[in-house]
């Protein structure tokens, strides 16, 4: 017992590497800040990697996605078999695309289900266990604790994504897709996981009880997935408006090559089937572009819209996959009746929107704003000395 405290070279205040900031320059401060985050991540990951539940979840995840992939593959083969028996035609495209899309949708679904569980008890769980104050009493800043918790939750979620990557690659090898598709979708899935983890960590910093924060995080995710669709649907009904248009007239010619008009400017690309004529009249229409941002909040829309697909504006016939359909639907909602209504403003509108009006940056931006807001509120609640405490909590 006893004298150890004197014998040890004191890491006391004056020799401290944590001396006043700014004296050693901004770069050291940044490195010090990041080091603190890393220390929190190390602490979190050690705990997560030692809990058996995490591995069980990972195993279940792997098995479920494997089963889904296998069933999709069987279903597709069966469909092709049936189609071949009816027609001699054997459409080769769509195989990889379908498996890829179903797997992608499932991975996103499970990601949205798993990420809250991985992140939403990060801080209030510690608060309940009395270990949060142990972190707060050290030199760690609220930001370091929050970012550390976020990064740890995200890394854990990325492990799930990595487990599902082989199935996306399998879908790719079934044909019709490139490495780019897999890379883009993995990146977007990772970003969506980050969004959900950020929401979860933010809410858990705000909440008093672990169960409450997990429930609220699930509700927030449900709001993004289902609520965005419902509010878009209802919102577009409320966004009644008009669009100036004249009447489409059927054409016998399938396609007219673009010609310069009298002003010497190229005309709009003309869609097959009709021309526009007659006086411009106001038609009732849903001004969906006003509420398209709600649709953009949907993670499925963000991911689907970000994945590239070939420009089909030249071809009259193509089989669009699920991803492409979601993307096209969302983009036409964003374009609004001015660009989608037949003969709006007296101009034939293309049925197919080019990739020049993506929706996902808007959606991702809004999601990041939401996440950032929650993280900021969470950061405020982690500041010490604490002014207000979440209701019903003890600080230690």
């Amino acid at each position, binding site marked *: 017992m006893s004298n150890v405290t004197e014998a040890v070279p004191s890491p006391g205040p004056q020799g401290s*590497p944590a001396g006043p900031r700014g004296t050693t320059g901004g770069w050291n401060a940044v490195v010090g800040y990041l080091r603190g985050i890393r220390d929190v991540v190390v602490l979190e990951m*050690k705990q997560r990697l030692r809990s058996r539940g995490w591995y069980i979840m990972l195993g279940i995840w792997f098995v479920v996605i494997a089963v889904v992939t296998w069933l999709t593959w069987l279903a597709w083969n069966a469909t092709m078999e049936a189609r071949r028996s009816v027609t001699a035609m054997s459409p080769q495209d769509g195989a990889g695309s379908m498996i890829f899309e179903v797997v992608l949708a499932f991975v996103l679904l499970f990601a949205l289900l798993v990420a809250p569980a991985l992140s939403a008890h990060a801080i209030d769980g510690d608060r309940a266990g009395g270990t949060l104050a142990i972190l707060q009493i*050290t030199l760690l800043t609220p930001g370091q604790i929050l970012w550390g918790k976020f990064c740890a939750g995200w890394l854990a979620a990325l492990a799930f994504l990595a487990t599902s990557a082989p199935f996306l690659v399998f879908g790719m090898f079934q044909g019709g897709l490139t490495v780019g598709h897999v890379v883009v979708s993995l990146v977007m899935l990772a970003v969506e996981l980050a969004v959900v983890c950020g929401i979860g960590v933010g809410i858990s910093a705000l909440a008093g009880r672990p169960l409450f924060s997990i429930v609220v995080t699930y509700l927030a995710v449900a709001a993004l997935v289902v609520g965005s669709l419902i509010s878009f649907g209802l919102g577009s009904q409320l966004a009644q408006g008009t669009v100036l248009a004249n009447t489409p007239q059927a054409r016998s010619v399938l396609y007219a090559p673009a010609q310069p008009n009298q002003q010497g400017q190229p005309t709009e690309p003309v869609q097959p089937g009709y021309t526009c004529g007659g006086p411009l009249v106001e038609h009732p229409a849903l001004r969906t572009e006003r509420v398209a941002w709600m649709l953009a909040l949907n993670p499925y829309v963000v991911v689907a819209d970000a994945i590239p697909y070939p420009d089909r504006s030249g071809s009259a016939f193509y089989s669009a996959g699920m991803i492409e359909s979601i993307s096209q639907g969302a983009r036409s909602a964003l374009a609004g009746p001015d660009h989608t209504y037949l003969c709006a403003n007296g101009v034939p509108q293309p049925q197919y929107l080019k990739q020049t009006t993506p929706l996902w940056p808007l959606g991702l931006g809004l999601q990041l704003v939401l996440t950032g807001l929650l993280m900021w509120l969470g950061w405020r609640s982690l500041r*010490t000395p604490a002014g207000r405490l979440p209701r019903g909590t003890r*600080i230690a």
Partner: protein
Amino acid sequence: MSIAESSNVPGGGALGVSAEGVSRRFGTVHAVEHIDFHAPAGKVTALIGPNGAGKTTLLLMLASLLRPDSGTIRIDGLDPLRDSAAVRLRIGWMPDTLGVWESLTAREILVQMAHFYRLPQAGIGQRVDELLELVRLDALADQPARVLSRGQQQRLSLARALIHDPSVLLLDEPASGLDPGSRVELRNLLRSLAGAGKAVVVSSHVLSELDEIADGAVFVNQGRTVKQQTLEEAARQGRRYAITALDNQALAVKLGELGLEYRVEAGLRPSVTLLLTHDDGAAALLRELVTAGIGVVSFAPAAGALEETYMNLETERR
């Protein structure tokens, strides 16, 4: 600790902990109301009060985790609101909730804490080993904290509070859950830490323990400072002694002859208690009784000095 550093701080540069007029409420509950508290460096100061008296709230404010609604707190003369990093380096805090990371080993927990305090990498291993030895957890160092008993976790928590060699120690119920041997060790450890110039603040219910450790005590109740006294003052106010004898009848007669006021206590063993103002009186009485041929079996303070004050305060309150 550099004294020069703290003496240029407004407030006189008093080392240790001081709180003046500190208040804190949670909603409508006034947990702490205008408490004054001083714990000088080099001394062990006990914080005593019944459950819910505001001890933990006060310690949380002293530990810079909770902001007081009003009043000022100085840690070695520094303001926790302004110099939080400097204050945190000086504070070692042991919460009443254990709060251990259960899946980490004792060693890993201490290493993590060293990182969080940004101690130089080179010295961490040695420092951790020494602390593990200090709290006698070296044999269990590589067991997950989950398998440690409550008392062992308590000792780990103490080691955790000491990792950065703080100059102020705030210990919330450090003795609870400790076996008698560990209590004695804790007592010696706290004394030696105070001897090394640290300000040690201990909150506890176990008053007889504190008698042996504390240099002074601050009594709080219902969020207020009720009394602040040193142990000498506590001892001077007189203590109740319990005496048992082979023949209690003869004892009672002798005490009556001496004109002392006494009380017969109902207990497992019949005894009498009486209030004696100082130790000399106690010694004289004992001599008197023995020379009178009374078979004194035991002659001891019925309660510790601090307990005496505590019980007096309790009765005053009613």
